């Protein structure tokens, strides 16, 4: 009970902090829109390529874009935490009886909410371009984004607490997120990739999320790959939360 109450308090706090800085809100929405407008049109001509999934360029591209949004959005959250560490806010919270899980979950829920809202905006904006969403597709999609948000932001917080400085956090994030992105089939479907690349991609949990997301947007909503993707993302979230909460409860020396 106390944990839920504390989580809610933390969630409110971090939502307020986020909303007080409108720049983040604008950037958060603008980024996916730029992909939509400046990158997606390139795909139009590729849809004829052998191996490109059927369903139209936007139904193939937008699901991947949303997964990317989740990955990038979540991996940057550690910067705010490092600033708070420096300001002494985290130490102040750790002296109070607040639940250590809440210190993590309150923030992560804020991150999930912002990701889900950004995803909805992106989905809506993609419709005039030629996206044909289904209701179940949207729900599965948002579920995937939320799970990625929870898992990846928890891991990002754990890394931020361990590294304590932007100077080491930023390189880590960039080094890890780029291969994760490239090996997930976000930009172009992995069906187009040579076999060796496909094998490496199988080790990347995000590739399953991308596959699941494309399936539900292209009429394969009942495919086992969809459940597989959701299950793997749920496992990622559980691992992330456990690692993150452990970090929050340990002394930050």
């Amino acid at each position, binding site marked *: 009970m106390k944990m839920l109450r504390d989580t809610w*308090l933390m969630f409110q*706090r971090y939502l307020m902090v986020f909303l007080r800085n409108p720049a983040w809100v604008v950037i958060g929405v603008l980024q996916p829109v730029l992909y939509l407008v400046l990158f997606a049109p390139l795909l139009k001509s590729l849809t004829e390529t052998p191996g490109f999934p059927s369903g139209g360029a936007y139904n193939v591209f937008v699901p991947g874009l949303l997964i990317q949004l989740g990955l990038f959005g979540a991996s940057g959250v550690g910067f705010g935490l490092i600033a708070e560490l420096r300001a002494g806010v985290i130490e*102040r919270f750790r002296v109070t009886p607040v639940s250590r899980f809440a210190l993590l979950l309150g923030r992560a829920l804020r991150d999930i909410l912002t990701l889900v809202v950004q995803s909805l905006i992106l989905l809506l904006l993609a419709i005039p371009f030629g996206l044909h969403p289904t209701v179940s597709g949207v729900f599965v999609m948002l579920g995937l984004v939320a799970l990625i948000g929870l898992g990846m932001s928890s891991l990002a917080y754990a890394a931020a607490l361990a590294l304590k400085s932007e100077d080491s956090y930023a390189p880590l994030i960039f080094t890890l997120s780029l291969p994760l992105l490239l090996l997930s089939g976000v930009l172009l479907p992995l069906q187009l990739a040579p076999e060796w690349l496909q094998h490496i991609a199988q080790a990347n949990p995000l590739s399953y999320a991308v596959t699941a997301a494309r399936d539900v947007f292209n009429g394969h909503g009942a495919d086992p790959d969809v459940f597989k993707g959701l299950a793997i993302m749920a496992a990622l979230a559980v691992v992330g939360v456990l690692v993150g909460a452990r970090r929050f409860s340990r002394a930050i020396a």
Partner: protein
Amino acid sequence: MIETHNLRKTFKSRKGAVEAVAGVDLDVKKGEIFGFLGPNGAGKTTTLRMLSTLLPPTSGEATVAGYDLLHNAAKVRYEIGYVSQEGSSAPEVPGRSELIMQGRLYGMNKARAQQRAIELITALELADCADRATKTYSGGQKRRLDIGIGLMHLPQLLFLDEPTTGLDPQSRARMWEEVRKLRDIGTTVFLTTHYLEEADALCDRIAIIDHGKIVALGTPDELKREVAGDVVVVGTDDASDRVLHLLRGQPFVREATVGDGLVRLYVDRGETAMPQILRVLDAEGIPLASLSLNRPSLDDVFLRQTGRSLRDAA
């Protein structure tokens, strides 16, 4: 209120181990202002962080606010407030929100937290800035907010880590006033400082800490009395070495040091020593620039215990 026994903290790093706190025994009484005086790096912050549940001790035992620190940290947290050296508020959040948030984390409902925040905003004179983001605060306002955050839940024990470092003299005087008010309402205050005047003027009892060890403990008066009766400070234009040489051998001088062109003579009774000093210097024909009679300061205590001046060490 606080009892520690052989409290230790060793930090291990690639370069080796640092023994930041090397066996501290303390007994802080309810309702007193207890000061931890020592130079930078002495182990003050590390001790405070252990006592406030932030850092697990390497060894030793402690009871804080009636609970065992090692086995009942959760209980300790409800009873204490902690104001860190670095500050505690987020730059983009208004002070009032920070206060309310803090109260809520200790289980207050919204109305109670708002009420308590208003009390503290009034008491700490933060009304002008309470609804602005804390990044716009002056140093004094920020520090007062930190104290307010630490006091939100009416703790019976408040830890203040260097509460006045970096403040201008006026804000410092203001802060002293707040700390004394806390004692008046029965709150125990454990503060650290590297300012001699602060420890002297504000604290009921002091522990002097150096290299992780307590080197002296008592009321400011007791500590100073241990050093010697009085200190006579003799100033000459440029003959301080000669003066030192002449006076060191006098039977009424217990110890003598020289620094900044001034000779400090530790004597039993200043009133009788002064005329004798004058006579000696007169006989040698050394002109006197200044002569003053002082009670020993806490720096004299530190000097005697460690062989260094706290003013240089800090």
